């Protein structure tokens, strides 16, 4: 099996290669390097570098989940891959690595090893491999034929039926019109129902193949298809993906019933039909289990346990699931059975995932909502008197008043954990600023609060903790609007909470969450910064004049590291009011003995003549390549572009976001207007002192701006150095990964 699969992997012409990645033969033939710690650059072979100036090294995130979920020794796929086969998700051919279980695992799992942990394992999202799906699919198909020929297939009729349908489904053109697919799905579901009547089993895979025939993991109109087709009968591209589907498709939001089926191929034929998750119509996306799966002798079929209802009705029901929501109460019944196998939200589609995203931003020009928000809010917020018309959709508050108000409310803020309160307070005072610092502070505060958490009686940890986190988040938003990186971190945390196994005890759950948060901070922020520095330092040569704007932690680390390496370079620090963060950077760099030139942003075109590289930090990188960063970054990038100086953005991948933005007006943050009118250290500049009394005069303190992608030469992330056009690839390929750590 092993020997057969590997060559297929390499030779399969249909390998779908997305983004920049190492050549496959490297991964297969490279020297075994089990000792290399994931985040090190040493993982990138020089040959890979020479092939492509920008490449994404294989992700280097060690999954600590692994030992827990995979106690079995893993068969080695290849010498190099072996130690990391399960923790890597090289974007080969897989649009949803998380749904795709490792071939190695599949190949060697005998049935008795298929413990209920399977579900957990496949849901862990670490199981993408570099193995192209096609090869695996073929293997799976072969296995399936084996399986079919074996005697003793339980409910052979049903199985055969399934096979037939699979073939038909898989043979369909990859992209089919929705209506056609749905019609087809209905037919299939009916047939499945018939089969189920015969054998009392419902082979879910058949009915769930419906939403998009054969098209694996392809995403269309926000609908994840289940290219189930574990037995993909020749159409190798759609086979073996084990994709879970959200068969609700468009209707998911409305009807909210969806089942997921994950299918893997294995020695035993259809060795796994993974159970089934109904993400209810509940917008929170907290999945409830309707169905659980059972192992049935050879072929893994799913038996439906529905109290009071025969499986055949369920078969029909599931077919109708596209149209009608299942009653929620039912879902809970089997939850305990399915607990260990639950997929949590892991298998949710993008559409569902979006529900988890903190609500974009409140539009403050909507009066009703502003009123509502005011009633809810903890901090009393006085609206700024002279609001800028153009920015009515953004919160414009008087800053001074909020601080004292919050101080006085310390003892009234019952629901807010003191650690969170402290962080919020420091946000408000501007004590913590900078994307990474704010994100780490927030996560640590959440960690504290989780440590102190105990589930109130008659409540479930998942729901209660989520609502608690929501409460904290809204408190923090009142202190200062969330940055995109914080939004991503919160999304991660909530996802972790919702995917907690139900049978975990409270203390276990808490330790798991605490370690999850630690891991996020370590891997996504601290290690990521180290990797970025290691990448970026290769771009600094002796004699360079590097320009940086304001103060970015990643760039600072980079400059210090380059200095430690003994590179001779000069730094130009461009600064701007009102924060003048560059001064602090200047002080730190000069303290280390780096030669610095300091200037203000207006003089940037004066100093740009001598500059050879521009290194900038970013608050976020959006899917259209726009760099959302400290206001002024766009100006610097623009001038650098004009002077033909390369602009390199250092940004951790957790700050990437799938949103797009064209201008800096629609989505931004307004700082304290008073900061603009008062020039620190220049008491002679006082003409704006009484600005509040003049209704025609509004100082505007914009905090961010959006740099168009054409000004950016390169974005340096922990996944490598990429052009801005590749941002959506990173978001797409790796976006799910950290949600699923």
């Amino acid at each position, binding site marked *: 099996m092993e020997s057969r699969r590997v060559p297929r992997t390499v030779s399969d012409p249909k390998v779908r290669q997305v983004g920049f990645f190492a050549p496959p033969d490297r991964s297969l033939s490279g020297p075994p390097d089990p000792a290399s710690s994931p985040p090190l650059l040493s993982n990138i072979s020089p040959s890979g570098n020479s092939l492509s100036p920008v490449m994404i090294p294989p992700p280097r995130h060690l999954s600590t989940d692994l030992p827990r979920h995979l106690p079995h020794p893993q068969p080695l796929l290849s010498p190099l891959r072996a130690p990391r086969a399960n923790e890597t998700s090289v974007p080969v051919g897989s649009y949803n690595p998380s749904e795709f279980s490792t071939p190695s695992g599949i190949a060697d799992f005998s049935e008795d090893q298929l413990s209920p942990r399977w579900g957990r394992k496949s849901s862990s999202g670490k199981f993408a491999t570099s193995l192209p799906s096609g090869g695996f699919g073929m293997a799976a198909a072969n296995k399936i034929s084996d399986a079919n020929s074996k005697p003793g297939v339980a409910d052979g009729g049903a199985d055969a039926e399934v096979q037939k349908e699979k073939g038909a489904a898989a043979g369909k053109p990859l992209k089919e019109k929705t209506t056609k697919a749905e019609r087809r799905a209905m037919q299939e579901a009916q047939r499945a129902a018939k089969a189920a009547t015969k054998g009392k089993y419902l082979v879910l895979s058949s009915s769930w193949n419906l939403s998009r025939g054969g098209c694996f993991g392809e995403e269309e109109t926000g609908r994840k298809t289940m290219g189930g087709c574990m037995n993909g009968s020749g159409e190798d591209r759609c086979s073996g993906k084990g994709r879970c589907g959200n068969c609700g498709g468009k209707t998911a939001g409305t009807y909210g019933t969806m089942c997921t089926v994950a299918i893997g191929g294995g020695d035993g034929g259809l060795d796994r039909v993974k159970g089934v998750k109904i993400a209810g119509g509940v917008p929170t996306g907290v999945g409830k289990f309707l169905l659980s799966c059972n192992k049935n002798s050879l072929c893994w079929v799913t038996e439906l346990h529905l109290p009071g209802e025969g499986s055949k009705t369920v078969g029909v029901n599931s077919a109708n699931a596209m149209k009608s929501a299942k009653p929620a109460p039912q879902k809970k019944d089997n939850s305990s059975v399915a607990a260990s196998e639950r997929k949590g939200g892991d298998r949710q589609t993008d559409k569902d995932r979006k529900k988890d995203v903190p609500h974009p931003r409140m539009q403050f020009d909507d009066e009703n909502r502003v009123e509502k928000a005011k009633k809810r809010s903890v901090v009393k917020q006085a609206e700024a008197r002279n609001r800028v018309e153009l920015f009515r959709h953004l919160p414009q508050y008087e800053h001074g008043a909020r601080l004292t108000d919050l101080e006085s409310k310390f003892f009234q803020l019952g629901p807010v954990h003191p650690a969170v309160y402290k962080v919020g307070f420091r946000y408000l005072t501007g004590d913590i600023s900078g994307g990474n610092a704010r994100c780490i502070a927030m996560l640590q505060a959440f960690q504290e609060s989780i440590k102190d958490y105990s589930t109130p009686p008659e409540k479930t940890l998942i729901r209660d903790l989520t609502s608690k986190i929501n409460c904290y988040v809204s408190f923090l938003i009142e202190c200062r609007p969330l940055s995109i990186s914080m939004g991503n971190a919160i999304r991660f945390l909530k996802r972790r909470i919702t995917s907690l196994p139900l049978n975990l005890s409270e203390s276990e759950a808490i330790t798991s969450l605490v370690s999850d948060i630690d891991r996020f901070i370590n891997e996504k922020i601290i290690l990521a910064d180290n990797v970025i520095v290691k990448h970026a330092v290769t771009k600094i040569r002796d004699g360079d004049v590097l320009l940086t704007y304001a103060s970015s932690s990643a760039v600072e680390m980079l400059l210090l590291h380059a200095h430690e390496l003994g590179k001779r370079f000069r730094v130009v620090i461009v600064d701007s*009011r009102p924060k003048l963060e560059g*001064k602090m950077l200047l002080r730190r760099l000069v303290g280390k003995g780096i*030669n610095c030139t300091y200037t203000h*942003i207006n003089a940037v075109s004066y100093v740009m003549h001598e500059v050879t590289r521009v290194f900038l930090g970013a608050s976020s990188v959006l899917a259209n390549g726009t760099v959302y960063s400290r206001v*002024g970054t766009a100006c610097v990038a623009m*001038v650098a572009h004009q002077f033909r100086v390369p602009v390199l953005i250092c940004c951790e991948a957790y700050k990437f976001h799938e949103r797009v933005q064209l201008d800096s*007006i629609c989505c931004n943050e307004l700082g304290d207007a008073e900061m603009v009118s008062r020039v620190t250290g220049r008491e002679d500049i006082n003409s704006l002192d009484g600005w509040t009394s003049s209704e*025609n005069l509004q100082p505007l303190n914009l905090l961010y701006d959006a740099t168009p992608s054409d000004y950016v030469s390169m974005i340096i992330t922990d996944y490598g150095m990429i052009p801005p056009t590749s941002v959506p690839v990173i978001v797409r390929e790796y976006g799910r990964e950290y949600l699923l750590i």
Partner: protein
Amino acid sequence: MPDVHSLVNEFVIKLQKRQIEGSKTTAKLTAELLRSFISQLRLPHSNQAGALIDAVKEVGEKLITAKPVELAVGNVVRRVLHIIREEDLSITNAAVGGLNLASESDDDDGNDEYDHPVLSASAVAAAARSALRPPSLQTLLDDMPHSAANPHTSSSGGDSEGKSKSADSLRRKLKHDVIEAVNELIQEISTCHEQIAEQAVEHIHHNEVILTLGSSQTVKEFLLAAKEKNRSFRVFVAEGAPRYQGHAFAKELASSGLQTTVITDSAVFAMISHVNMVIVGAHAVMANGGVIAPVGLNMVALAAKRHAVPFVVLAGVHKLCPLYPHNPEVLLNELKSPSELLDFGEFSDCLDFGSGSGSPLIHVVNPAFDYVPPDLVSLFITDTGGHNPSYIYRLIADFYSPDDLVVRRKSAS
């Protein structure tokens, strides 16, 4: 005479000490100084124009070297030189007309013979100069009547005494005319704001959003003129670090009823997409249409270009400089005190690091001006109307004579 020289010296010192700021003030003061200089200058009996030009050049050179960055000084000096030449030319033309007649009617008059060659020589020189000068409609029109008028004047006739009298009066007339013309120049400089502001209504429409950076008197009057015509528009003022003149500017605009928003300079790119027009003042306009402008405007101009926002420069004619820039970012710039950016006290401890190795670790760059290349400028509005950057070289030919481009005193000859 000594008082004039002391006046000049005082002015030079003021320029060097940067006590005179702003191109308009400088231009006006320079013109006034030159006026008083000319009025006190005792002209020789012969070759008055040449002597006057030499004297003015001498003073002009002094003034220009006092503050080479302030191009307005050189502009005014050149303008005055041009005025002298023009006046001289017109007088000579008149004289040539008279002399032609004189030489024809009575060539036996010995008294006048002495003067004739000189005058005719200067007339020839003037003619040569006018030939050198690129043809302008003005000169074409000026020349036409003379040639047409010559026969007319010759027919009128006159005696030698009258001629010598007229030559004498012409001599006195030159200085007088020059002073008159310089007065006009001063007048022009002081009213250039109004002249420019008159055109505001043609350029600002209702509900317009205008961005400007720093402070400029010209821009202020331009905007207020449009406001007086009941155009309602809003203005974004970038504060213009490190001098922050935008603050006072915004306050003035707001107090006269304009909706004004102060933004930091870094927010220019963010805001420019919502701006209809960028209106700024200039420090000087070079002959190629490039602009020496307050620092930061190159960035604004680039952002405006990116978003196809018109970048309009308001400049009085006295800011037109007949020179072509070479490396203007460096050569026509001025570095201000670092204390505007960093407190000396604040970084005194860090500065010690440099003392060991011999070179300081911190450099602070605080330039005063930016160069905006002509392709970033959409329009110049001067007191003579709106012009394309590509037209500036031609406009300059109307105000300056090519002989004066290099203001350097001729050697003893």
